[in-house]
């Protein structure tokens, strides 16, 4: 589904990713772990299509398409979802308006009919309920005045509504208390744990992986994947630290 080959990327002339390769197949959940500054978020942004990051070598294909040639919104329409570490506030725009416009823009790109207001609201309310988020929150401006945990939960509501093929979740567990962690973990499983979907979980900590069992765990250090293993690798990292394991 996603194939990253020898990816090099830099920002402001500073090399961050230095030959990263990774292949994710349908039905798989991959966790990327690593120390601060290893390039985890950069990987998410490069895959999501954020301007400012320059790919200097390598390739990324998504379902056979050259991902790097596509604008961020085209990637979204192709089925890629980026869950933000710091979800952004958009004052004056309600969650409902934001998400409905976004979803219908994606649908238009795929030549699908737009969802009516009623259809959309039903979908959004169901997702909010599944994530134990008050439906009133849907009327509030996007992420404005939300707590850290609410923002992350809101990301999952968006993911549920958009129903992507492939999700990159950048530190979705940060800022969550124990209960919220479980709710978000359940959400990821419910929405994404399917034979035709895949997930790339970017995280510092092992704790989210108690809820979302990864098929593969990769250690990202200094812009490259230095080790790959199964779920047990996360426990090893937790015990021994990155310096030991990544070296």
């Amino acid at each position: 589904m996603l194939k990253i080959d020898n990816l090099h990327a830099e920002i402001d002339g500073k090399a961050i990713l230095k030959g990263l390769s990774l292949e994710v197949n349908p039905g798989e959940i991959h966790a990327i772990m690593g120390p601060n500054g290893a390039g985890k978020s950069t990987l998410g942004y490069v895959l999501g299509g954020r301007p400012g990051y320059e790919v200097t070598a390598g390739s990324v294909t998504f379902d056979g398409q050259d991902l790097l040639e596509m604008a961020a919104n085209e990637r979204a329409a192709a089925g890629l979802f980026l869950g933000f570490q710091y979800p952004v506030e958009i004052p004056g725009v309600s969650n409902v308006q934001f998400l409905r416009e976004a979803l219908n823009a994606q649908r238009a790109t795929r030549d699908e009919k737009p969802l009516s207001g009623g259809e959309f609201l039903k979908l959004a309310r169901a997702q909010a309920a599944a994530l134990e988020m008050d439906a009133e929150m849907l009327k509030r401006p996007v992420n404005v005045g939300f707590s850290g945990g609410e923002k992350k939960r809101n990301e999952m509501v968006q993911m549920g509504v958009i129903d992507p093929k492939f999700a990159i979740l950048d530190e979705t567990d940060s800022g969550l208390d124990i209960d919220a962690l479980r709710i978000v973990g359940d959400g990821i499983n419910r929405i994404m744990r399917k034979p035709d979907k895949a997930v790339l979980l970017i995280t510092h900590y092992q704790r989210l992986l108690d809820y979302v069992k990864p098929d593969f765990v990769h250690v990202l250090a200094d812009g490259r994947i230095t080790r790959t293993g199964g779920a047990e690798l996360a426990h090893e990292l937790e015990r021994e630290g990155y310096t030991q394991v990544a070296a």
Partner: protein
Amino acid sequence: MATKNAEAHAAVAKKYEWGFATDIEQDFAPKGLSEDTVRYISAKKNEPEWMLDWRLKAFRLWQTMEAPDWAKLNIPSIDYQDAYYYAEPKAKATIASLDELDPEILRTYQKLGIPIEEQKVLAGVEGARKVAVDAVFDSVSVATTFRAELEAAGVIFRSISEAIREYPDLVRKWLGKVVPQHDNYFATLNCAVFSDGTFVYIPEGVRCPMELSTYFRINAENTGQFERTLIVADKGAYVSYLEGCTAPMRDENQLHAAVVELVALDDAEIKYSTVQNWYPGDENGVGGIYNFVTKRALCQGKRSKVSWTQVETGSAVTWKYPSCVLNGEDSVGEFYSVAVTNNRQQADTGTKMIHNGKGSRSTIVSKGISAGRSDNTYRGLVKVAPGAEGVRNFTQCDSLLLSDQCGAHTVPYIEVRNPSAQIEHEATTSKISEDQLFYAMSRGLDQEAAVALIVNGFAREVLQQLPMEFAVEAQKLLGISLEGSVG
């Protein structure tokens, strides 16, 4: 003698018939501005003597005045002699079909979802008018129904030329009472040469049964560059008035100097909404309309209320300060504004809230959006007279920058001469963030849609003041005005 008279009559009749039937050439006033021009216009309108005198007085005054230069605007000097001051709309350049229209304008029409027949009218396609009236209103009789309904309610809704002839006492009582003839250079010019406009009178206790909007949309084509509007809401009356047109008018008049006067008596309320998107000129600032408007409301009565809402996206230069003179006790003035400037556009806009009445209150919410190499200034005055006890004002000015070459300026003037006044002023300036853009795009919106969404969110407080149908068009318009302004 009798023969002579008959001859004269015949000549007059003939001339009239001729004048009536001809088009284009005969409907221009001679080029330039003189007393003759003023007389020509007044005669064209069959105006009574007092009206002509009033115009001439203004013209003589205007000759002694100089164009103001205190605004933060860079305006090339205007040759007032090199312009026509009266041209019937028939003289508007016509084209045979939409195919001849600038594709850019056509594309904008389509984006706004304007029906094809209406597009033809806006573009000035030959012979399209009648069809469009039918298309918009189903049939002319519907418009007549509107008129009948208004008349049954006692509402007077006329072109100002008609009103001057039909309701001279009412017009005379209020014309120039809110914006006096000597008010400012452009207002004085308007007094001398105003071409047409609208008169509205809502009698005591009447709530105008409809928003005076769709009807106006037809009439809008007939209003010239020196528009004059007078709205009087008698005691306890209410009216919502919508001005403007959300499609880009292909307008060859460079200078627009309108005057709008509103009068609200005891317990009356006027809601005045404007969406303005005249031609802003090209990316290099060539062409475009100069929009020098004087809009003012007299909240004369106790508990009277006037609310101005404006969405300004067009014109090369905008100079406009819709204001409220709050004379009545506990009267209320509101000003909600969104001003967008892109490319080389310049806008200097804001409001004046003059608190003379005890307990009068005002609210100012201004949202300035600057892109390209444009300049956007909020200029506002809050003034409290010595005798006005218990005045309150709240002002909020927010600026959003979309490029690093544009300017946003906030110039608030506050003059308080009564210690009991409570005046609050908040101002923010922010730049549209790459985080916001990327976030919206990563959810599936293309760049233009993302900018439009963020900008609309920024302007929401103001847009929600607009009547529903207008708000939707205004939202689309904000997006269109800012196309290509980021990245």
